[in-house]
């Protein structure tokens, strides 16, 4: 079985040969992979090097914690990859982005207006939660197309707050 696995924007071609062998980018390695009972923890021994991985489902794909660093992964098999390629691939990137509340809280201030151009990193609004004021920044360049909240509003977790075209 062949997979295209993306780790933080870097692609790996991973083929599962049998229970003890995997090839990664064409290189065959011997793997000893074990799920730890009752825990979301896996032990992987590759060429006698021991790795402990904590794995959980993130927004898209699995989050993998290895040696203190968190890796975001997307695993696709060849069919999935072809389907995505056919449908235009990275189209979502340039479409509308909805800024959702990362946690419930109170809108302290909205720093932008509809129609305003924003750069990646610009502060869009301030959300008060956990007794802290948190600046929410734009994840990319764009134009504010819609604002659905105002200062003083309470928002629920994942509530849409504004949109960027």
């Amino acid at each position, binding site marked *: 079985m062949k997979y295209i696995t993306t780790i933080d924007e870097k692609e790996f071609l991973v083929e599962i040969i049998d229970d003890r062998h995997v090839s990664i980018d064409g290189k065959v390695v011997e793997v000893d992979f074990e799920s730890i009972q009752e825990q979301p923890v896996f032990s992987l021994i590759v060429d006698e090097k021991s790795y402990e991985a904590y*794995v959980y489902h993130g927004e898209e794909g*699995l989050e993998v914690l290895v040696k*203190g660093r968190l890796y975001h992964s997307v695993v696709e098999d060849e069919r999935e990859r072809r389907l995505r390629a056919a449908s235009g691939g990275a189209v979502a990137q340039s479409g509308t982005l909805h800024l959702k509340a990362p946690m419930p809280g109170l809108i302290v201030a909205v720093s932008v207006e509809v129609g305003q151009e924003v750069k990646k990193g610009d502060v869009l609004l301030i959300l008060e939660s956990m007794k802290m004021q948190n600046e929410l920044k734009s994840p990319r360049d764009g134009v504010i197309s819609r604002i659905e909240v105002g200062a003083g509003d309470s928002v629920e977790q994942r509530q849409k707050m504004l949109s960027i075209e």
Partner: protein
Amino acid sequence: MFNKVLIANRGEIAVRILRACRELGLQTVAIYSEADRQAMHVRYATEAYLLGPAPSSESYLRGDKIIEIALKSGAGAIHPGYGFLAERADFAQAVEDAGLEFIGPSASAIAAMGDKAIARETMMKAGVPVVPGTEGTELLSDEELLKLAPDVGFPLLIKATAGGGGKGMREVTNIEEMPTLLKSARREAKAAFGDDNVYLEKLILGARHIEIQILADKHGNVVHLTERECSLQRRHQKLLEEAPSPIMDDDLRKRMGAVAVQAGQAVNYESAGTIECLVDSEKNFYFLEMNTRLQVEHPITELVTGVDIVKEQIRVARGRKLSFAQEDIQVKGAAIECRINAEDPHNNFMPSTGRISHIVLPSGPGVRVDTGVYSGFEITPYYDSMISKLIVWGETRAQAILRMRRALAEYKVVGVRTNIPFHQAMMDSHRFMGGQFDTRFVEEEFSMEEIVEGKETFPDIAAIVATLVMHDQTERAAHVVRRGERDTSNWKWLSRWERLNR
């Protein structure tokens, strides 16, 4: 003398105090909000009473209700912990008026020292140097503060008079931005302390934040437990503390200790308290404020002095004399505390809410964890984001740093983001290792990304793990594998894991 203590707090500090009570053989009463029904402090106490809905203003800040519960339960004393009602003189007074023991200083000491403006005046009168700022103790309006600001000089700080922990604090670089900052400082202070009064203080650049722990009994004994180095802050929130301070010398320690004891004596202080100072590069120190309560970072002092500060607080509240004298206090080794917050250090330290699906605490030699969370704990947006404190001791500062690295590597939290990577980067920072930092270091000079960049990464390992996990999951879904006791598949899968993560 009381034999039952009500703990008017939640989270790790409630558990910390419950442990001290248990070690003293005292009965305990926990209080909880609706959000905290499953919390460790509720399960750990002898008795538990519901306070009210989740928001602090309807639960942990309801002093009236808390006193009512103390009386109903027969608790003879109330320990306020830190935050919430800990530095409210009116609450301390109400506790006393109800015939209960307040485990902390007297209401008058809290009023004198807890109000930052009055404290500054008290210290100035006693000849202790203070950071220049708005003198006097009357409450000032925005208009008055704006008028006084140029005299204090920019940059300056707006600080909450009832404050602590950086809440209601704002840095001001010019008069133009001041009105807006005053407004937000007052709002934050109101939310945190129920009091929106603020004052101004000159910002001393290049300074270190060093504080002295004191303990005092009802018999006039005041002893200091040496210093803590608390310069590593972000938005005026301490992130990491250590004892002793890397810049400390015997002379400075003696001088600062003497001032701290003097400050305590000036207000007939009782119980644990902390004198916070700024120390400039010439080792001049300025009184900043006194925290008339237990500090978050008290464990590092416990580790280097061997004194259990919380037990000592309870002992002196029961009328006992301090169990040690000034000459018994010796600093041994070095201790570091990392505050583990549910915050994403890769995303501007955004708080992270949700359920901790799995947690592994570090353990073994020289490692202490104070926490109130567990696998399954839900982090709500109602309270602050600190989920635990990781504290280590080492024979030397270098060994403490190496041990902290080891402990951070063992600490695993699944389900929410934490600032563990920040602390790991800090432990690798040459400036930190060299002890070369001031209060602006974290915000202005420290780059987590830079330090992380140089480290070895394992994207290939992550790719193999992710692929094997997904592969197995797909196989299972396709074949509907029978789940027997023994699964011969090598990358066997746990149903719990699947359920947890779907």
